[in-house]
């Protein structure tokens, strides 16, 4: 693993207050509710730690609720993530964390698409080859054979489990 932190001083955002959920009185308590954006957001942001920092990915603005596209009827979810660092090896690990977290939390009928997106800011020059890197990371993250083979690598799984381990506050 890298000996120095790549992103030593990340910008930390405040955790968003969770919307209170008040179901209508006449709703059947045992009915299965369709999975929506907030639920996916809750699954992802609660316990995933950036591999380099103790803060959650939500606090680092890696995932935002509007970066989640979910259609429960067609069992499809697409999440776009933007790591604070452009280092592609971290992007792949974060992407895999997100995919594994979703795989473990959602019904098996779900099709998951994980997209890595590099923020294009006007006053920051985008490094050459950036879009190529983004495309390369996305191709790997969405190749089910590559993902399956990667998840058979015990070192990688250990790293992912560490990122996904619940933090007790």
């Amino acid at each position: 693993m890298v000996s120095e932190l790549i992103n030593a001083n990340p910008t930390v955002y405040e955790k968003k207050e969770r919307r209170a959920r008040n179901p209508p009185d006449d709703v059947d308590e045992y009915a299965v509710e369709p999975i929506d954006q907030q639920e996916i957001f809750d699954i992802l942001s609660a316990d995933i730690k950036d591999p380099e920092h103790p803060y959650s990915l939500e606090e680092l603005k890696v995932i935002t609720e509007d970066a989640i596209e979910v259609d429960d009827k067609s069992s499809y979810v697409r999440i776009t993530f933007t790591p604070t660092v452009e280092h592609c090896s971290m992007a792949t690990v974060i992407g895999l964390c997100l995919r594994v977290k979703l795989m473990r939390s959602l019904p098996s009928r779900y099709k998951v698409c994980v997209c890595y997106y590099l923020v294009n800011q006007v006053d920051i020059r985008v490094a050459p080859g950036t879009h190529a890197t983004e495309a390369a990371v996305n191709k790997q993250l969405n190749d089910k054979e590559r993902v399956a083979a990667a998840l058979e690598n015990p070192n990688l799984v250990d790293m992912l489990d560490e990122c996904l381990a619940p933090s007790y506050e």
Partner: protein
Amino acid sequence: MSLIDESFELREIQRLEGHTDRVWSLAWKPATGIGGVPAVLASCSGDKTVRIWEQSRLTGSFECKAVLEETHTRTVRSCAWSPSGKLLATGSFDATTAIWDKVGDDYECVSTLEGHENEVKSVSWNASGSLLATCGRDKSVWIWEVLPGNEFECVSVLQGHTQDVKMVQWHPSMDILCSCSYDNTIKVWAEDGDSDDWHCVQTINESSDGHSSTVWALSFNSSGDKMVTCSDDLTIKIWGADIMKMQSGDGIAPWKHICTLSGYHDRTIFSAHWSREGIIASGAADDAIRLFVPGEND
């Protein structure tokens, strides 16, 4: 009556349970399921095993006859029977290819082919059963010669693909090998008449009407003058070559694009196969299986 006038229906006859992880591939054993010989099927899985299923003469149900285990140490990704049905080759993420032979009622691993640097993705026997091809994430295609006593010798390591090679398939009648890859291309490999050296004789990329994303599978029709490929780009493509020219020893005829089938699947198409009767079956991540037949003018 041509195929287009017939109506087809896929009917599930049985669900085979036993594997404890994803089933990646299957292969029907040659010369079974016909002439009174019960059909036999091999399946391979993420549970590191291969299962052999046989249709019961009495009930017509498929039963698991053997579990080939304790050999591969990772997912078994691909399996293929030799043309005579005597041997079964299995390719695994553990970077090896195992060769199995039936001894009595059991299958024994009689040889282990090593050489790939990482996951083996596909295995394929040539029409005569004298050669075996394997490919993998290390971007290479290996050709192995079958020697007496179940010995295998590597005769060539083909480099050319720039990424993970997903599948290899031998032509049904000639010793021509095709491979398809994560690099979005399809390559055709043949032996140089004089020197017995294998080399790439054609690369089909996006600019030659090829695919724009990973090509997952390819399959030849029974006469070998056409092949079908499918891709992450959501299309199925049909290719044709002048086989007569090739068979007459007039050099290698290039594969040319015939048509592209799009709009039938809205997720990655992982599998395409051309049946003996001329039906193309495709399987995709949209959980659909589609059957295609040639139209009147095709």
